[in-house]
């Protein structure tokens, strides 16, 4: 038993090295996309976001939204679901626990 533990402990640096080698290129691709797609909005973009909301409201009032194709509607629904999930991720961070409140 002790010998097996020793052999495992001796292998840990190789395992760590292999894990780093595996994850480096994947981390690089992640950063490549995240640096453009996942960044928070700059202060200059916030008025554009507000005008986007106003566009949505006007489209709803004029009935233009009724003309969206099912495909576009599904796509927008997926985007809206993703935005909703960010709320739950924020809640996880705020309650400092993955599942349930640790009271």
């Amino acid at each position, binding site marked *: 038993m002790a010998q097996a533990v020793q052999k495992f402990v001796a292998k840990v640096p190789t395992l760590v090295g292999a894990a780093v080698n595996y994850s480096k290129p994947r981390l690089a*691709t992640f950063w490549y996309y995240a640096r453009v797609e996942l960044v928070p*909005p700059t202060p200059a973009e916030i008025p554009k976001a507000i005008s986007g909301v106003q566009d949505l409201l006007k489209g709803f009032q004029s009935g233009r939204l009724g003309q969206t194709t099912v495909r576009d509607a599904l796509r927008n629904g997926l985007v809206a679901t993703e*935005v909703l999930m960010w*709320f739950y991720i924020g809640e996880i*961070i705020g309650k400092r626990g993955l599942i349930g409140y640790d009271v």
Partner: protein
Amino acid sequence: MVPPVQVSPLIKTARWSALLIGLIYGKQRYDYLKPIAAEEKRIEEEEKKLREEQERIYKQLSEGL
């Protein structure tokens, strides 16, 4: 590789404000639930003490017989 897509500012603001609101909501709900849970734990402790006291008395009586 596919070039990264330019996300619309509306979606970006919506995402990060959702994150912020979720953070605040989680923190506030945790602060609200914590004293309630502490109170319940305290009450449970007292009732447990009472119950164990009664069990002890019951056992003593039944052994005395």
